[in-house]
């Protein structure tokens, strides 16, 4: 079915729903690369008018990627909760935006509709929302998850400590981990991207992390971000797996490009649940996503990159994850060209995930060939903090020496917590205090030299 809009005397038509969605998207290089972007600013706004008039329920009978062709579409359709959808069922996309921003859409109301919202609905409404709208609505949504601590509470900002090393040197990783812990980082997860993606290497890294966690009784979880099939094998061999990580995308074909299927994820999820390693809760999955992944795998089915990305959150929420994050600026300038596009994408990803009930964090990051720098990351972290982001990623000095890109430093995250009065996860804050690293009354991570703490012995 075609859609149209007359804007200031000019009539614009859009051949189908996915074209309408793509043309309504804020400009970004990935949609231009795919040949899907609006050809003029006026066409973009005309598409937004047409999209705003679209009944939300359209997305329940008109799929962007055919049901028969794609298991993510089937997952979305088969798990849709009509009852949860009913409070907003009569709204248009534009009406939905107005409702989301209204006082009627309380935290409770937003939580109760999550299972009734499809990724396409979330993506559609996000396209007619300004950055402040995305932040305002996200801020109202609480998604709380638990493993050895509580993630996502009001007033908290968790962090992933990312101590990567180009050769997976255990002492080098321990030194970076120590640095992060002394700066109060690591309540979301201490998570390593291994340089070598193998079962034996994963086992060695996990053993080191688990040993440190147990030795100091740290109320957090650890993870080696190896392929899910490796993690399944590591679990079979009795490895210390807290969380199962996998990169996921919004189409079956793109997931196949990552070497995963919904079946493999289910198998891994069930295996991790039986380990029963969580003390407070049993959210055992960790997913990474990012706009552009599907296009780069030539698996976007002509759908714009933000909408395909939102579909990945439907995959994530099917497995009750502890953590999900968009690796927003990692993919490079052919998908998100500059700081403006990276910031917009991060706010969209966070909003869409939260609206679907997914515990969304972000790796606020960029590569050296993107038009972005640390000032853009400063802006982004504050915007995400204000929007209630679940967690952010920190690396020593913002410089990941293994993956060769820049994220946030531990210092940046301390500054952000101070700026917005955000605290670590409560169990982790209590641990930092017991270790003499945190002044809870003044909400300050103390500057303690490694030699003057028990943790200092970690790297021996």
């Amino acid at each position, binding site marked *: 079915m075609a859609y149209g809009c007359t804007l200031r005397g000019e009539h614009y038509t859009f051949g189908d729903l996915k074209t309408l969605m793509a043309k309504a998207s804020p400009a970004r*290089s990935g949609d*231009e*690369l795919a040949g899907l972007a609006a050809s003029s600013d006026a066409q973009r706004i005309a598409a937004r008018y047409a999209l705003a008039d679209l009944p939300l329920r359209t997305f329940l009978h008109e799929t962007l990627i055919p049901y028969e062709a794609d298991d993510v579409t089937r997952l979305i359709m088969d798990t849709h909760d009509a009852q949860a959808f009913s409070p907003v069922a009569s709204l248009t996309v534009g009406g939905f935006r107005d409702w989301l921003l209204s006082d009627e859409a309380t935290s409770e109301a937003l939580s109760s509709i999550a299972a009734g919202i499809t990724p396409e609905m979330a993506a559609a409404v996000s396209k007619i929302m300004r950055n402040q709208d995305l932040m305002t609505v996200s801020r109202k949504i609480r998604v709380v998850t638990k493993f050895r601590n509580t993630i996502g509470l009001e007033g908290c900002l968790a962090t992933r400590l990312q*101590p*990567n*090393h*180009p050769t997976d*040197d255990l*002492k*080098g*990783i*321990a*030194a*970076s981990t*120590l*640095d992060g812990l002394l700066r109060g980082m690591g309540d979301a997860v201490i998570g390593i*991207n291994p340089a070598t*993606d193998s079962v034996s290497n994963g086992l060695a890294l996990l053993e080191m992390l688990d040993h440190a966690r147990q030795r100091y009784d740290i109320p957090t979880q650890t993870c080696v971000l190896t392929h899910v099939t490796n993690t399944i094998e590591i679990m079979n061999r009795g490895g210390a797996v807290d969380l199962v990580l996998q*990169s996921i995308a919004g189409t079956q074909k793109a997931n196949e*490009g*990552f*070497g995963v299927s919904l079946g493999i994820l289910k198998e891994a999820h069930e295996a991790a649940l039986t380990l029963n390693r969580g003390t407070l809760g049993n959210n055992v999955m960790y997913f990474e996503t990012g706009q*552009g*992944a599907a296009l*780069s*795998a030539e698996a976007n089915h002509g759908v714009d990159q933000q909408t395909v990305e939102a579909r990945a959150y439907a995959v994530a929420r099917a497995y009750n994850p502890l953590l999900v994050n968009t*690796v927003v600026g*990692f*993919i*490079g*300038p*052919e998908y998100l*060209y500059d700081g403006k596009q990276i910031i917009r994408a991060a706010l969209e990803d966070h909003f869409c995930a939260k609206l679907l009930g997914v515990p969304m964090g972000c790796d606020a990051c960029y*590569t*050296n*060939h993107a038009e972005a*720098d*640390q000032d853009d990351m400063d802006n982004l972290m504050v915007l995400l903090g204000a929007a209630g982001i679940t967690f952010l990623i920190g*690396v*020593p*000095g*913002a*410089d990941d*020496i293994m*993956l*060769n*890109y*820049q994220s946030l*430093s531990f*210092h940046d995250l*301390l*500054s952000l*917590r*101070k700026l917005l009065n955000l605290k670590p996860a409560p169990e982790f804050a209590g641990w930092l205090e017991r270790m003499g690293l945190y002044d809870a009354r003044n909400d300050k*991570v103390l*500057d303690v*030299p*490694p*030699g003057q703490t028990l943790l200092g012995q970690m*790297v021996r």
Partner: protein
Amino acid sequence: MTDDRITSPTSQIPDPWQDLRQLTRARIGLGRTGNGLKTNDVLDFQASHAQARDAVHTPLNIEILTGSLGDEPYYCVQSRAPDRSTYLRRPDLGRRLDPEAAATLPKGDWDVVFVAGDGLSSFATQQSAISLFRAMQAQLADWTVAPLVIATQARVALGDEIAVMLGARMVVMMIGERPGLSVADSMGVYLTYGPYVGCPDSSRNCLSNIHPHGMTVPAAAAKLSWLMREARHLKLTGVGLKDAAPEVVTLETSVPLLEKDNDQ
């Protein structure tokens, strides 16, 4: 970077992180002022980022590059990406020859063609491409080696079309890798047997991290010549060749998105 500058009084205080820094190049144990970074650390980061960005955006100096070739013939071509901004947004254009440039490449019959492409770091190509080409000419005395091709706004796959135009059975693309904060002048080398337009990355072999503090040019030349002889013998490159390589030849293949980078 700060060696030749007057040291500030604070740097005289013993640094408790000094021993730990031996364990990793990561920027660990950076001092705090309030919650923020110290001035020197902020500037050091900005200096590294500036160097990386300059590596991406500085055009390859073809005059200097060809100056060292003496009387040897060479060809200069460019991709369909007319400028750096387009190049960065449109990797597809960087993989195809500008039609006018393609017409300047005469069809011949060569065992191999070497291409010096700017890629994402002209610094790397400027520094290492000619010396690697020279080293390989010495190693390949019994091969017919086409004149060097210098390619700008180039991605790895641009070499495939160059080889087809020249009639070369193998292509070696020497190309600047995406710069990191610590290394901005790293060159990668991609070897492809029987290249054609649309050739998949899985049919290439790659040597990366070629720079003065990584893999040296002589070490790269030794590995590359082993690869090229095996490729000629087996009539293939890619996964099949990687599996046949002895331990001493460390090889890499392309890694998936979100696991590493995909700048080819």
